[in-house]
């Protein structure tokens, strides 16, 4: 039995197909769990899927590189989906233009808060310089975060992990947190999700409201722009 399994496993584990199926299945399970929990954001399908896939890799002794060779087909779609965010954005152009100054102020405040408190907290708690620098751009969309991290002397792969951790957290607690501050406006929810939690938090908001999706798309795009310009500049000041 074990030998037969091994016989099947060895060739399969090297093909992209297996890890594609595992990733999709883990996400479908994650969504079922969320549905079973009455749609609670605490049962984040992204987090559940990451845990299932991670446990599978550790359990089977598969390297991340082998896994990624299969999962890269899913990863690739991050590009087209980022472009697709133009659709809710364009459909709410009028609304966005009307609130341009609010958006600009909120973006600047949120972006600076994220960078300064991220670096500051690592520094206060005795973390290393490379971890602090990896933390600086972690709120923006993963590809920008990694590029900026590399530029300022952080660790790009660590930044990607931090970006995803932050995104999951923002997706999980964002709505409850803001409701506690009596903020019930989708424009504020969407922008905050896009600025503080980029894609993962945006996905959570986008699934619930179209105006939220438009402001989240704007938050991701503009914060990416701002961070790419601002963080390398701030990093030169911190020598």
């Amino acid at each position: 039995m074990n030998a037969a399994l091994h016989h099947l496993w060895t060739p399969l584990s090297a093909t992209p197909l297996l890890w594609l199926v595992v990733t999709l299945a883990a996400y479908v399970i994650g969504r079922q769990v969320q549905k079973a929990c009455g749609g609670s954001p605490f049962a984040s399908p992204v987090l559940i899927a990451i845990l299932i896939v991670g446990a599978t890799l550790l359990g089977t002794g598969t390297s991340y590189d082998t896994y990624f060779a299969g999962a890269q087909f899913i990863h690739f779609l991050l590009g087209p989906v980022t472009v697709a965010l133009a659709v809710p954005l364009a459909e709410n152009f009028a609304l966005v233009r009307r609130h341009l100054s609010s958006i600009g102020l909120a973006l600047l405040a949120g972006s600076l808060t994220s960078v300064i408190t991220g670096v500051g907290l690592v520094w206060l708690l005795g973390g290393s310089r490379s971890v602090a620098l990896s933390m600086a751009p972690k709120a923006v969309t993963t590809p920008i975060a990694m590029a900026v991290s590399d530029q300022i002397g952080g660790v790009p792969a660590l930044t990607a992990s931090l970006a995803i951790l932050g995104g999951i957290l923002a997706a999980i607690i964002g709505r409850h947190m803001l409701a506690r501050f009596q903020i019930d406006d989708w424009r504020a929810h969407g922008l905050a999700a896009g600025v503080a939690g980029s894609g993962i938090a945006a996905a959570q908001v986008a699934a619930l409201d179209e105006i939220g999706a438009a402001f989240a798309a704007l938050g991701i795009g503009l914060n990416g722009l701002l961070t790419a310009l601002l963080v390398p500049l701030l990093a030169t000041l911190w020598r």
Partner: protein
Amino acid sequence: MTSAMLILVGCQLLGELLRATFQLPIPGPVIGMFLLALALGLRARRTGNDSTPAPLKPAAEGLIANMGLLFVPAGVGIIAEAGVIRKEWLPILVAVAGSTILSLIVTALVMHWTLRPTHTQDTDRQGRAS
């Protein structure tokens, strides 16, 4: 569906080309997003109809609805970073949680405060109309 995919990856490619040509610090897909939004906006102004053309809208909505899935492969990469995270877990966890929460609240509050005047104006207008 295929034409929608062509538009999306086409904009991404255009974004990559612009990034490479002008050495921009922004990734291609984000440039592609602004390009497509601009194109859709111009089209809406020309036709006077701001709904998105048929094949693009369902494709975009389908992708956005399942966006969470697309972060799973990169997210699993956390296990490859387990070493550093275990060594400096306290500063990492506190900083990720603290800065994400503070940034969420600050962004939303500033948006909320600066929007409020327009908000009451809107309700006034609605109030008068009814």
